[in-house]
């Protein structure tokens, strides 16, 4: 049993996008705020803060999850991936990100970080994901600009590209 006092800041360590990082958190600090304010990883956006909109979606130990419904102290020692880790290098977008750009799958971009994390996880776990599976994962997100069709088109094209890459390899 490990007890963390409410009004003290506690050291939290995690692997963020492949790099070990450390920060301090009071028990009530949400993972979304820990990422943004403590680690300055502001790619993850904060929308509704009760798990409905999906803007804050990140990957926790390989699974997509709402960072606003997770406490930083809960994920001490975990592996966290955020939108900052998607591009293979500073000059290049990932296949999914490129497809988003090509298909205008974002307008204001507020929801995009979360949607990219969900779809990236889906396509990583299920490279042959079909439209039904993409729609199902997308149902966990709200976008108020695009009407979703462009996001769907981008994800379907990214899935086809990734599948071809695997077949060619």
């Amino acid at each position, binding site marked *: 049993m490990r007890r*963390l006092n409410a009004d003290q800041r506690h050291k939290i360590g995690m692997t963020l996008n492949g790099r070990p990082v450390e920060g301090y958190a009071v028990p009530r600090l949400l993972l979304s705020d820990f990422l943004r304010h403590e680690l300055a990883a502001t790619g993850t956006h904060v929308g509704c803060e009760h798990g409905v909109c999906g803007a804050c979606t990140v990957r926790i130990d390989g699974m997509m999850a709402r960072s606003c419904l*997770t406490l930083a102290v809960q994920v001490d020692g975990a592996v966290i991936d955020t939108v900052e880790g998607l591009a293979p290098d500073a000059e290049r977008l990932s296949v999914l990100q490129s497809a988003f750009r090509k298909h205008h799958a974002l307008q204001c971009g507020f929801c995009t970080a979360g949607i990219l994390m969900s779809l990236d996880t889906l396509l990583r776990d299920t490279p042959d994901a079909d439209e039904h599976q993409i729609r199902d994962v997308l149902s966990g997100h709200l976008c108020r600009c695009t009407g979703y069709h462009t996001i769907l088109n981008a994800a379907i094209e990214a899935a086809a590209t990734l599948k071809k890459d695997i077949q060619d390899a």
Partner: protein
Amino acid sequence: MKPAPFDYVRCDSLEEAAEVIAQHGDAVRVLAGGQSLMPMLNMRLSRPSVLADIMQAGDARQITADKATLRIGAGVRQTALSAYPDLCKINPLLARALPWVGHTQTRARGTVCGSVAHADPSAEIPLTLAALDGTVILRRGGKRRRVTASDFFLGMMLTDKADDEIIEAVEFPILSEGTGVGFCEVGRRKGDFAIVACAALVSPDRVRLAVGGVNDTPVIRDWDAFDPAEESDALNALAWSLDAREDLHASARYRRDLVRSLGAKALQEARTCAA
């Protein structure tokens, strides 16, 4: 929208969690997957002074199945249950209901027992537990008691669990051979809480329909002999007997209409599945 301050206790076993609860009583809330509790904390509808996190408790993560029951420990995530081998054979109703529980993103962390503890009137897992006459195992210190689902769900987000108790596990009975199951629901968005959800069980000598989202707790209706010709009358009578109310999400009339149409759909699915 940030939680009020609390002490956080990471428990290594359910026994430790039970100790923390015994020590602090109603000041403690048990944190499992957090997909119901965290919104309550963020909105400050719940302001515990201690959170007991049970997700590191090794003894809470077990799923066990024998000939009679499927037992799911307090720390079992919904995703883990979905991936349990042969779930669609062991508990076909649960297998059909789980994809409707929240979204992929919330099922990855949310637990089965957490949804039961939260007891939202529209939630699918409490509905399934009630439809199958399941049991909740509650623990106070080292003592345990078993409560049937019908006695457990008392009202909207109100259960028979006392403040100093923790849900240790839930048990779903295994259905007898030849029982068909059906599940369907309507919500504003796939993965949102249901406006109305229906679970159906059809066996040669019994027909059961469980309805969620209308009353404060799941409603069960059984028929011994069910004449398909009178099905629409039976469903109409059921719809009018419920406590359908108007709120932001739907009118009472729409809810009654959904009970009739989803009820028929769930029963049809169950009959097809039994055949």
